[in-house]
């Protein structure tokens, strides 16, 4: 690859109202989408707003819409996503835009609280450490969902989030599912009521866009299906109103 090779990128500028603007960026080997955005901000237009921190796929802050699909831009190589030499980069969908590529993720995180995505301990530091075997089937269900980095890609990809303003969303429900399978947690009755209230797990259409797009390879749809089964059992026991 020669140093003079370039790529033409269109990038969202503005808030919810705005337009895609065109930039020409030098092409480099192993270049990521985040590298492109950073180049534009540092070399072409310093007023460009976007969000990133770790650059290595850990922090979950750099998710954007790339050629129509939500992706973690720091771990997305340009060569893998460029279509007919074109690259269109926009903010995540289903969230209000603060400016350019930065979205207001308040609603996304509020849903985590609403789904009671917080561990409620049943012991204190004075007690012995709980013995949890990695081979325990319940623990394995939890382990399957715990690597979420809160990037918002699943929220952005989800049709139900787009259609249903009350929906808790894949990430918050996936988090709730991991806690429902945590033997040390003491809030499971409250949490199952929270995830089967209006906009809860039952609203999921099983389109599996969250699974398709999750950069961590998680399957929130499976977690939500687990919550549906758990909620149904609670409903039949008369524990849900």
């Amino acid at each position, binding site marked *: 690859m020669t140093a003079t090779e370039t790529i033409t990128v269109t990038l969202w500028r503005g808030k919810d109202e705005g337009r895609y603007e065109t930039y020409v960026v030098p092409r480099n080997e192993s270049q990521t989408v985040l590298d492109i955005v950073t180049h534009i901000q540092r070399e072409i237009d310093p007023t460009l707003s976007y969000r990133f921190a770790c650059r290595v796929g850990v922090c979950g802050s750099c998710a954007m819409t790339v050629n129509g699909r939500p992706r973690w831009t720091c771990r997305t190589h340009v060569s893998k996503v460029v279509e007919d030499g074109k690259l269109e980069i926009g903010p995540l969908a289903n969230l209000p835009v603060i400016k350019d590529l930065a979205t207001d993720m308040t609603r996304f995180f509020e849903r985590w609280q609403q789904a009671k995505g917080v561990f409620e301990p049943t012991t204190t530091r004075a007690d012995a450490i709980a013995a949890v075997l990695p081979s325990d089937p319940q623990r394995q269900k939890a382990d399957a969902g715990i690597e979420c980095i809160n990037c918002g890609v699943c929220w952005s990809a989800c049709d139900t989030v787009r259609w*249903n303003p009350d929906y808790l969303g894949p990430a918050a429900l996936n988090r709730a599912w991991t806690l429902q399978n945590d033997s040390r947690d003491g809030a499971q009755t409250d949490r199952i009521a929270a995830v089967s*209230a209006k906009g809860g797990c*039952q609203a999921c259409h099983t389109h599996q866009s969250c699974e398709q797009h999750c950069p961590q390879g998680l399957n929130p749809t499976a977690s939500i299906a687990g919550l549906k089964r758990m909620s149904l059992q609670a*409903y039949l026991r008369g524990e*849900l109103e």
Partner: protein
Amino acid sequence: MSFRLYVLQRATALILVPLIAVHLIVIFYATAKGISAASILARTRGSFGWGAFYSVFVIAAALHGAIGVRNVVAEWGPDQLKRNARLLSLILWVTGLGLAGLGLRAVYAVVVA
């Protein structure tokens, strides 16, 4: 959608699956044999079995369809409608009672009248 409606829609789906199978098989059987409306009516009139079968069918279908229509409006309707819980309930009841009324009237016509 409340969890109660979610459960009710799945329960009615479970009921409907075998009933639809019987319904379709009987339709194919009856039309393949070329039997007349009069001979069908002769079998259904006064039949407790067919009356019960289609009464359950109609009620399950009315509940299932009404919850579905309510959800379609709640997700795809205009924003003012999505947020209006009373209007969504009204859509549920009007659709459900409408479908049940039309269906039960038909059951009455082929079984009793």
